């Protein structure tokens, strides 16, 4: 029989070897899949790259996709630091988008330089409050935050659906169920051909890195995440810190919602977050919550997603197959973590003979 034992101190070289091997395995396996579908896997992979980075337009598209990935991963990464499993990035994005849109639709006469910051603050508060609900329930009643944040995603989704189909429905859209577009004042200005939200990425990457590593609050978050008993022992107000961090964590997701509304879609719809909240969990995890690694992983993910949709059109590969390809890569990379943390050993077969047994 084989047993699994924890592996201590996996060397850096070995970690890299394991991860590279995992990625190769993923490409090999999906290569067979592509062969089965009648395509040359090398051509497909090449054009995937081409689709993600092949022209300045495509690079731009990839970067626009990187922004929500990176920001959301940074946001929920903060809760993960405290071992608060915030699966609710999706809902927090939606609620942030919702409150930002509320401001954007109702105060459109305001000049841009007032309206946009107002929308961002509204987005932050919307997402932050949405994250505070499970945080408060956990601190006060020890509820399970994973379930609650997940469930609140569906509540948020249904709320946006209600807004889109009933409450905020644009009656001049020829019966099409949509919320009115934001006016020019409420749209993010462009910089280098991208919306200005892109600036937030380096600011937050560096800011969060400095915050976690060098500030007193960041230290408290790290201590709580590693050992809550010790945090209480050291006289840290753990409940307050958990609530505060979750507000910021959800608030960052809320700002992502505002950016998507005001910089990309120009309106609120049920597709506003489009799974970003979930993808960000994987990104944060793969990057091991390191702010700079989050940036890199987010970009690679964006390439994969953009490239994935490109090969759909070029090779007429069904969308499901492109998703399968992404899934395989994720599966192998995440699965390889097992071999970094554990090893499998084989037991010597021992037979135990007891009395009464012949």
């Amino acid at each position: 029989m084989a047993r699994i034992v924890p592996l201590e101190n996996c060397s850096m070289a070995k970690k890299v070897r394991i991860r590279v091997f995992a990625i190769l395995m993923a490409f090999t396996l999906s290569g067979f899949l592509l062969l089965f579908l009648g395509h040359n896997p090398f051509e497909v992979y090449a054009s995937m790259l081409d689709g993600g980075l092949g022209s300045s337009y495509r690079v731009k598209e990839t970067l626009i996709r990187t922004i929500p990935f990176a920001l959301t991963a940074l946001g929920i990464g903060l809760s993960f630091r405290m071992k608060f499993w915030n699966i609710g990035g999706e809902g927090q994005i939606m609620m942030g988008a919702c409150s930002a849109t509320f401001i954007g639709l109702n105060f459109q006469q305001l000049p841009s330089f007032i309206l946009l910051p107002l929308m961002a603050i509204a987005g932050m508060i919307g997402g932050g409050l949405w994250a505070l609900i499970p945080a408060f329930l956990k601190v006060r009643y020890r509820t399970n935050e994973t379930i609650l944040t997940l469930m609140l995603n569906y509540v948020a989704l249904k709320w946006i659906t209600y807004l889109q189909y009933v409450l905020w429905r644009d009656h001049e859209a020829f019966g099409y169920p949509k919320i009115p577009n934001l006016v020019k004042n409420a749209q993010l200005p462009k910089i280098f051909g991208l919306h200005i939200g892109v600036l937030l990425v380096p600011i937050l990457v560096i800011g969060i890195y400095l915050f976690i590593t060098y500030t007193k609050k960041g230290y408290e978050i790290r201590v709580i995440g590693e050992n809550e008993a010790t945090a209480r022992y050291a006289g840290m107000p753990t409940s307050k810190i958990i609530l505060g961090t979750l507000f910021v964590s959800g608030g960052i997701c809320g700002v992502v919602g505002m950016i998507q509304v005001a910089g990309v879609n120009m309106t609120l719809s049920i597709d506003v977050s489009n799974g970003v909240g979930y993808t960000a969990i994987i990104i944060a995890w793969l990057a091991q919550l390191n702010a700079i690694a989050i940036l890199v992983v987010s970009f690679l993910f964006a390439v994969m997603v953009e490239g994935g949709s490109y090969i759909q059109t070029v090779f007429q590969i069904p969308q499901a197959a492109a998703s399968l390809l992404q899934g395989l890569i994720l599966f192998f990379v995440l699965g390889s973590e097992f071999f970094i943390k554990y090893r499998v050993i084989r037991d010597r077969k021992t037979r135990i003979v007891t009395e009464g047994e012949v």
Partner: protein
Amino acid sequence: MNNEFVIRMEGITKEFGSLKANNNVNLNIRKGEVHAILGENGAGKSTLMNILSGIYTPDHGSIKVNEEEVAFHSPQDSIGAGIGMIYQHFKLISAMKAWQNIIAGPSGSLMLDKKSCKRKINEICEETGLSLNLDAYVSDMGVGQKQTLEMLKVLYRGAEILILDEPTTVLTPQETDRLFSIIRKMRDSGKTAIIITHKLYEVMEISDRVTIMRKGEVITTLNTKETTQKEIAEIMVGKSMIMEFPRLKIPRGDVVMKVKDLRLEDLVSMRKLNGVSFELHHGEILGVAGVSGSGQKQLCQALTGLQKIDSGSVSVDGDEIAGLTAYDIFNKGVAQLNFVPEDRLGMGLIASMSLVDNVMLRDYQNGDSIFIDSKRAYKRTEELVEALDVMHPGIDKPISVLSGGNLQKILIGREIMSEPNILIASYPVRGLDLGVTHKVVELLNEQKQRGAGVLLIAEDLDLMLEVCDRIMVMYCGKISGIVDPETITKNDLGVLMTSIDEECPNG
């Protein structure tokens, strides 16, 4: 009873890091006896039994069951050899009925024959005198019934040898009587029972033989009939070691902490403080002795604001701190009270963080800036490491790579850095070698010299008799006596610790 050994453990050694939990242990169990394993917390009883039940594999040594050498890799191997363990914390599925819990397990056939299962269970019940409503749900059962169910479970799987880990901790006296009569009946039907315990009167009442362990080693095995409670107590706490700790003879100062009628009920561990009152003076070391689980942990947590108290008062230099949280006590500067917890890496230190990050835990708030003063943190860490001679691979490395002794130096060093008025040290020398133990005692004495009141919770009576100015004995959440170590004997201490004539209702 005959002289056939059903279990022979020879030369068992098990190390956890640098700690030898079991050191060259030999244990023989006769067929059909009730064998008690006695020892204080950390004596290695549970480790030894976990080895016998297949949870741990020993580093060295051999186990023979019915003179047949065996190697257990899992509890399934052990139960296959007829050894079943009943844990202190039950492992039952509460949403299932009793009989379903009994038959649930790895060695079943695909199809269930409910009738024959129940028949077999009923046969076991008849044979052993256990009785239980098999159709009751576990969630509806009391503690005693759950224990019965656990026993039925291992018997059903063919256990001939039962290991019971502190079985009476959770039972009322009446339930304990019932358990003991069942154990006797099982012995009469040819089964063997091993009972882990630290209660002397239980040993006297139920066991045929008793093995006494101390510090990972078996001291001796005695026939219960041929010994006395006093003799066992003496062996359990140990003869004087060749170790001298100087008691610092200085006049003690005024009262620094006054504790009055402290009461609390810990619903998680079922332990209580039943009205604890004492005074701690400046410039003294007040020892707290007692069998583990007598309320020492609750006392520490109550004094440091980590656990809510129900009533009572704690005043430090006239300021009332009872009812304040650890945060209040620490940040509002009400009391200069520092605490060295017993479980170093569970509370007190953070395993994955660096030495620097650990040392600054108490004073990271220093300064008005939102940023940590890392220059100061590094400097203080370097000073501490140098002053206490801590062996380390680098102060930026995770603290978990340090040995137990070095961890303890860092922990105590950090806690005394701010020169507190009161230092509470919970089991500060547990698991440490002689050299570090000396160092720790030296540090405690330094605090006393400086004028701090030191509350020292420990299990090593020899050390306490040498170092402490007074020893307070706890039993059953109460103080059973405060004695002068110069005049008291260890035997008398032992009597206070176990309070033979009084049974503790909650273990």
